[in-house]
């Protein structure tokens, strides 16, 4: 780990000023940052510790029906908040399917949004990586690409975004509240992460000093509570990143789908909202045929970035399964194995 200056911020304004300096990064729980620093992948000159900032660890249920989640709320605290888990079950299930209990107890919601890719070539300082070293090339191309992107990738980068949490969030129109050197602003979560194009080193639209202070879900998001699921296919049943994941939320009206929300994880460098599939589902009957049509629409633009064509078919089948489970209704209790396709209820769909 490189040497760094440690600054403990006493206020948001102080944090923003300290982090706007070149080489500075924010420290929250550090569960991803310290891992990257131990591997010399991240070498920040200054850590601005925001964990002692007051007021950023609250979950506020807003008068109009929305929810405002402070940036420092721990992943497990959000997932186990009874009101939140009831109104946003797919988000709670996604949270509990990620990482381990120890990591969820420490990691913050803003840290989850800003975690870096787990592409093994990004994590290996001996490999060329355009994300770490712009213009160096991408050793993942032609390498071990089983888990890499099938949507939105470029010749410069085929990595994926690893978050589970972001997948239902992006489908439910989550908004990020940001404080920066020029004041406060809001960024839709769907616009926070950038696709790689020719600059995979530019991962988000955030500028130096920008601090995420909260995450907001609009009132409409809770309208899907009765028919929301998150499913995640992984190489082992627990404590693994997604090969492919899907979040499906439906509003059923008189035997038809009034409104649908669908997003995929593990397929692109950002949480992937499947808007064409949502449009295909609107007004349709909740049948396997409708779900298969939606799956086709969601993957219409997909192409393998290497030896990963299987992920495209896997994603189609997972969409059908997740929509089927969502249509059946949100389970009364969180499944014993959150988001697992091997949970009792998921096996029969």
């Amino acid at each position: 780990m490189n040497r760094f200056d440690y600054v403990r911020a006493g206020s948001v304004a102080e944090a923003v000023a300290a982090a706007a300096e070149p080489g500075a990064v924010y420290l929250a729980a550090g569960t991803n940052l310290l891992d990257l620093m131990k591997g010399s992948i991240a070498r920040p000159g200054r850590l601005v510790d925001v964990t002692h900032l007051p007021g950023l660890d609250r979950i506020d249920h807003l008068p109009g029906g929305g929810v405002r989640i402070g940036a420092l709320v721990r992943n497990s605290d959000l997932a186990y908040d009874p009101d939140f888990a009831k109104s946003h079950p797919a988000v709670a299930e996604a949270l509990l399917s990620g990482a381990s209990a120890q990591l969820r107890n420490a990691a913050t919601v803003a840290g989850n949004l800003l975690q870096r890719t787990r592409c093994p070539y990004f994590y290996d300082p001996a490999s060329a990586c355009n994300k770490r070293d712009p213009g160096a090339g991408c050793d993942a191309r032609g390498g071990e690409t089983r888990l890499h992107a099938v949507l939105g990738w470029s010749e410069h980068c085929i990595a994926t975004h690893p978050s589970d949490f972001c997948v239902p969030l992006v489908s439910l129109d989550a908004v990020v509240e940001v404080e920066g050197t020029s004041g406060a602003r809001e960024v839709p979560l769907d616009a926070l992460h950038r696709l790689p194009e020719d600059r995979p080193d530019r991962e988000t639209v955030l500028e130096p000093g920008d601090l995420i202070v909260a995450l907001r879900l609009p009132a409409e998001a809770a309208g899907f509570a009765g028919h929301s699921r998150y499913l995640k296919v992984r190489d082992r049943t627990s404590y693994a990143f997604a090969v492919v994941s899907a979040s499906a939320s439906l509003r059923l009206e008189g035997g038809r789908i009034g409104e649908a929300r669908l997003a995929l994880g593990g397929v692109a460098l950002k949480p992937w909202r499947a808007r064409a599939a949502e449009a295909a589902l609107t007004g349709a009957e909740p049948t396997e045929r409708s779900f298969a049509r939606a799956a086709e629409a969601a993957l219409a633009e997909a192409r393998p970035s290497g030896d990963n064509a299987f992920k495209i078919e896997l994603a189609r089948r997972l969409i059908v399964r997740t929509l089927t489970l969502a249509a059946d209704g949100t389970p009364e209790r969180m499944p014993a194995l959150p988001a697992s396709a091997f949970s009792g209820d998921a096996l029969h769909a």
Partner: protein
Amino acid sequence: MTFRLTLTVNGEPRAIELDDPRVTLLDLLRERLGLTGSKKGCDRGQCGACTVLVAGRRVNSCLALAVSLDGADILTIEGLARGDALHPVQSAFIEHDGFQCGFCTPGQIMSAVGLIREGQAGDDPERIREGMSGNLCRCGAYIGITQAVLDAQARMAGATQGDAA
């Protein structure tokens, strides 16, 4: 630059001076406070051998900077027993053969204590296995570990009822 912080470690207030902000909680415990029960396995948050409770919650001490935890209450494996009387989770691990080589055991036990405090798993072995998935055991003592957690939880629930009566 010297960083001064105060921690409560196993019930005792400790004033700590760090000459380097890079010290993790795990390295502080092992190298500077002589508490070597918490183990350094992967040092990357993947194995769980370093698990301790911070403010009553289980975390990976290898992925926390000590300087950031100023004011925190830390419980390690050394603080679990009351004198010679083992904590129910410790006793249950012995009775159910919840280990073989023992390297992962302090982390397993602290994680189990955290899991029982969280109160989410109940008496469902599947939920306990899921809740303990952040702790790897290379000897494969998982069957004994699950039984130990179930048994300890039942005993602690019984003891709580007894206290209340």
